[in-house]
């Protein structure tokens, strides 16, 4: 037992005791305590185990810089959170916390064997070992290394919490509500500016919270800010990243601190765009580097003062101070005044200002000038320490149960650096301070390098008579990086600070080097004999402190992850047992199984219905673009491969669209409604891409054309009626359109009404049967579908899905862009040369079609494949070879793009891209599958009704 609660003082609410548990033992603290302060008040010094050596560790700090005291908090199923800093966990009734990275227990951890073996595990040791015998790597070494990984346990169940997010805009964003930040906010509170003040702690005040003299000022100021209508104050909110153009990411923690989780979001992501930013993030004290500086009970002097004043907790009953800075003396005085015994102030400097000496004397504090701590005794807690003159003489023991370190200060320039502001080296501070801004931002207070902590000496490590190469003097506490590891890295030729960081892993722990970076830098610069500025500084990366995945994902969770688009008819399909497939953002009915049917049976039945009676299909997802204006035909003529100018109003045409590199990107049937109006259709997945591509050409290449494009994909619900009886179903419902073959031939469009609503009625077929595609305003899609089902019942009308549609079109050899083509296929490859206007001087992609490798022999061409065994359906994606007996790697001459069982033909059919395919008609090719080879014959692509008689049913 070392730390204890003082009888008086502090900002904790002594009227509200709170019970919590740590590693199974129960403790009491007060409202306002962190887990760290509450445990400390209970005399707990041991908080965790280090990553590599599993050394016992206590608290180093009191805030978000804490590297040692990492804790797991569990609050019910799915609510396990590892690696939280005890210094940032607010206690609440019932808090259940456990230590990490130890087994079987925190006090006796078998992993600590690594500490004994430490000499054999220097930085980068794994690069040098585990290579022999080679076979051991996969089986033994690597699994062993991986098992040693990690700190806490990952969650094992889905997180039941949800997370919020918002955008926010302000004229002034202030990060950090310490004295400097609050002053800046007060200054702006009188103005018309919209101000947001962000602070990561539960209570605003920053450094002022550690200084009772400022408490009245603090409460007054906060009252004023609360009263200011233009100031928004966000506590428990961490500004974690500074992005382009003053865009700051911050996360607000809403429920982790309270016993009641409630139903609200756990955390909220703030995406803030600020006209101006003021960074007031303060400075972090630096540890001193010496043997035993990581023993529980050795901590930052400023942290001890935080515990003392803010939480009324003394970190020990007899506290020694190891100072290189005046601030350490002040912290010692603060303790003495609060009645905590100061064993001594050990000061590495030979002289300090008389004022300090006088005050020490007045408080009866023993002082050792020109001395350093050279050893700390005790494993789980400080027992006493050995000090010596800096020349190694006058070695003596000093009894104490806590040791405070005052090694200097490091301005928190993380966000400044995210913003690409430059840094300048300040020799006196031995630190980098903000220099030139890259955004509209400035730093105020300690993070700008200005503070009243007094003067001091910056020292890379304390002098010691012992062999520096043999002692463990820690730089990065969590990652167990010692000064000698950095020496070793330099010795092995790692001369850039980035190399040293990566080789030793210093600064790469979850604290991101907040307390270690500058010590590491100074040690490296000494070892290299180069000035710190020549060694450089590792880049600061977002986030400032670790941030929850869920918070960063914001709303995009569960049903809100990504929209799933449904057609107006989707509801009917769902109610009627459709099985769906996802296509681009849409979900489409794939087939409509009836009782006992599998996909095959259902699809066969649907196909039969279309071929023998009439099928009904929801084609609403097809992209639609209305192209309107005097130059509409001219525009389409330039975009598509085929001619459009001569197309008569009332007629439709198949359009093929290439990228400028000559490869097929989209296709669709389009109709001319009037001389200056076209109704285009695109593939389901291509709608947005095609519209953007057309806008691009229209706006930037041919701005002189008087034509405009409007997406009408969602204006229309589209119902395809296909089959010999389609006309009979339709006829009684349509008004103002003569459906007779003479008046309404294949590939024509008519406008009229159906069941009283306006329709654009296409006579088109993607099945080879007599067919219509009925476009009606989307709101009426479902009602019309249901009406058609009623009327069609007498004709055996059958709803079919995308799978049957694929089979039916394949029987006719109609390609599906994206399945039978893959972005490397030209019109000729796909057998669509007929759709390329030979007399056209230009169209998008034309020039590319004459490039040497595009006109070369032996390109893959789309052909049909008929397996020798008609019952065998090839697998889509299967590869094709000419010689199945060749050794691997085989020469593949093509692959199967589509393959189905054709109910109409009573056999399997397939489409394939085959090298020189059209010269191979009748040739036997092979599809080697695991354990078997399927032989198949090359055929044309039209398997059913080649002369197209059925179209004119």
């Amino acid at each position, binding site marked *: 037992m070392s730390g204890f609660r003082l009888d008086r003082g502090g900002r904790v609410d002594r009227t509200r005791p709170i019970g919590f548990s740590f590693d199974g033992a129960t403790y009491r603290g007060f409202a306002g305590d962190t887990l760290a302060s509450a445990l400390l008040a209970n005399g707990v010094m041991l908080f965790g185990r280090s990553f590599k050596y599993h050394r016992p560790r206590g608290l180093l700090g009191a805030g978000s810089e804490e590297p040692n005291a990492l804790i797991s908090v569990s609050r019910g199923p799915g609510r396990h959170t590892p690696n939280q800093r005890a210094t940032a966990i607010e206690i609440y009734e019932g808090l259940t916390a456990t230590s990490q990275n130890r087994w079987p227990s925190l006090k006796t951890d078998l992993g600590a064997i690594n500490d004994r073996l430490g000499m054999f595990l220097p930085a980068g040791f794994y690069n040098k070992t585990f290579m022999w015998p080679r076979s051991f790597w996969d089986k033994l070494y690597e699994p062993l290394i991986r098992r040693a990984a990690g700190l806490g346990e990952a969650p094992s169940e889905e997180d039941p919490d949800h997370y919020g997010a918002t955008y926010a805009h302000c004229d002034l964003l202030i990060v950090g509500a310490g004295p400097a930040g609050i002053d800046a906010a007060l200054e702006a509170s009188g103005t018309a500016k919209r101000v947001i003040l962000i602070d990561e702690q539960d209570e605003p005040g920053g450094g002022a919270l550690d200084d009772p003299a400022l408490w009245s000022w603090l409460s007054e100021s906060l009252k004023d800010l609360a009263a200011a209508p233009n100031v928004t104050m966000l506590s428990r909110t961490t500004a974690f990243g500074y992005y382009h153009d*003053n865009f700051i990411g911050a996360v607000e923690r809403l429920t982790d601190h309270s016993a009641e989780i409630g139903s609200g979001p756990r955390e909220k992501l703030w995406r803030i765009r600020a006209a101006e930013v003021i960074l007031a993030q303060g400075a972090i004290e630096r540890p001193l580097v010496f043997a035993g500086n990581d023993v529980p009970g050795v901590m930052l002097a400023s942290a001890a003062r935080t515990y003392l004043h803010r939480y009324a907790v003394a970190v020990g009953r007899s506290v020694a101070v190891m100072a290189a800075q005046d601030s350490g003396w002040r912290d010692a005085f603060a303790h003495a005044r609060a009645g905590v015994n100061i064993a001594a102030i050990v000061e590495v400097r030979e002289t300090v200002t008389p004022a300090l000496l006088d005050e020490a004397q007045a408080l009866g504090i023993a002082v050792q000038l020109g001395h350093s701590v050279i050893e700390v005794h005790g494993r789980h807690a400080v027992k006493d320490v050995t000090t010596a003159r800096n020349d190694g003489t006058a070695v003596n023991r000093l009894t104490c149960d806590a040791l405070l370190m005052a090694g200097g200060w490091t301005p928190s320039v993380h966000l400044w650096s995210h913003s690409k502001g430059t840094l300048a080296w300040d020799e006196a501070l031995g630190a980098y301070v903000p220099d030139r801004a890259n955004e509209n931002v400035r730093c105020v207070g300690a993070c700008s390098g200005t503070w009243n902590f007094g003067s001091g000496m910056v020292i890379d490590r304390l002098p010691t008579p012992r062999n520096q190469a043999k002692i463990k003097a820690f730089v990065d506490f969590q990652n167990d990086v010692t000064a000698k590891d950095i020496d070793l890295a330099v010795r092995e030729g790692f001369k850039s600070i980035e190399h040293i960081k990566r080789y030793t892993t210093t600064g790469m722990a979850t604290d991101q080097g907040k307390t270690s970076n500058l010590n590491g830098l100074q040690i490296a610069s000494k070892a290299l004999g180069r000035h710190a500025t020549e060694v450089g500084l590792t880049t600061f990366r977002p986030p400032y402190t670790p941030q929850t995945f869920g918070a960063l994902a914001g709303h995009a969770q569960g049903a809100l992850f990504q929209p799933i688009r449904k057609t107006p008819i989707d509801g009917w399909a769902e109610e009627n047992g459709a099985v769906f497939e996802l296509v681009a953002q849409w979900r489409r009915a794939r087939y409509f199984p009836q009782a006992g049917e599998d996909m095959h049976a259902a699809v066969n039945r649907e196909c039969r219905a279309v071929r023998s009676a009439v099928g009904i299909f929801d084609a609403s997802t097809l992209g639609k673009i209305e192209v309107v204006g005097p130059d509409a035909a001219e525009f389409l003529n330039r975009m598509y491969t085929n001619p459009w100018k001569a197309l008569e109003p009332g007629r439709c045409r198949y359009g093929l669209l290439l990228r400028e590199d000559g490869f097929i990107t989209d296709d669709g049937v389009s109709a001319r409604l009037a001389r200056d109006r076209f109704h285009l259709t695109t593939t389901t997945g291509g709608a947005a891409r095609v519209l953007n591509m057309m806008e691009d050409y229209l706006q930037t290449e041919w701005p002189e054309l008087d034509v405009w494009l409007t997406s009408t994909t969602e204006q229309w619900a589209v119902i395809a009626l296909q089959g010999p009886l389609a006309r009979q179903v339709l006829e009684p419902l349509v008004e103002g359109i003569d459906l007779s073959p003479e008046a309404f031939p294949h590939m024509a469009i008519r406008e009229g009404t159906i069941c009283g609503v306006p329709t654009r009625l296409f006579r088109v077929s993607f099945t080879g049967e007599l067919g219509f595609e009925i476009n009606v305003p989307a709101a009426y899609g479902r009602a019309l579908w249901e009406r058609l089902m009623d009327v069609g019942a007498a004709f055996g009308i059958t709803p079919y899905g995308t799978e049957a549609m694929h089979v039916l079109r394949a029987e006719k050899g109609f390609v599906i862009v994206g399945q039978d083509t893959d972005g490397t296929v030209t019109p000729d490859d796909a057998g669509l040369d007929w759709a390329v206007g030979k007399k056209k001087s230009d169209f998008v992609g034309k*020039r590319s079609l004459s490039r040497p490798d595009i006109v070369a022999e032996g390109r893959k061409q789309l052909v049909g494949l008929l397996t020798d065994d008609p019952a065998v359906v090839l697998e889509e994606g299967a590869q094709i070879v000419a010689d199945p007996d060749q050794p691997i790697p085989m020469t593949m001459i093509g692959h199967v793009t589509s393959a189905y069982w054709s109910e109409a033909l009573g056999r399997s059919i397939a489409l394939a891209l085959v090298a020189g395919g059209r010269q191979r008609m009748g040739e036997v090719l092979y599809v080697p599958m695991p354990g078997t080879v399927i032989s198949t014959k090359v055929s044309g692509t039209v398997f059913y009704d080649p002369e197209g008689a059925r179209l004119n049913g």
Partner: protein
Amino acid sequence: MLLIHCPYCDEQRAEIEFAYAGEAHIARPPDPSALSDEDWSRYLFIRSNPRGRHHERWRHIHGCGRFFNAVRDTVTDTFEATYKAGEPRR
């Protein structure tokens, strides 16, 4: 997320409203068939990709819908100017 001034809306708007559209001032040749394969491939594929001033196209796709040009420093990502399509290179 960049803040982009749309020269048509004459407003600074969030990057997520915009779609980047590649290097600017690469006009489609009036008569592609007259070009050699070499020149055609240059038009299709060669880009300046500079460290520094970059002339590029953006589309305010979730705004006014217009394509426009911009000059941006590719090292700092700061916009020097944005201007309407068809205006001379800045």
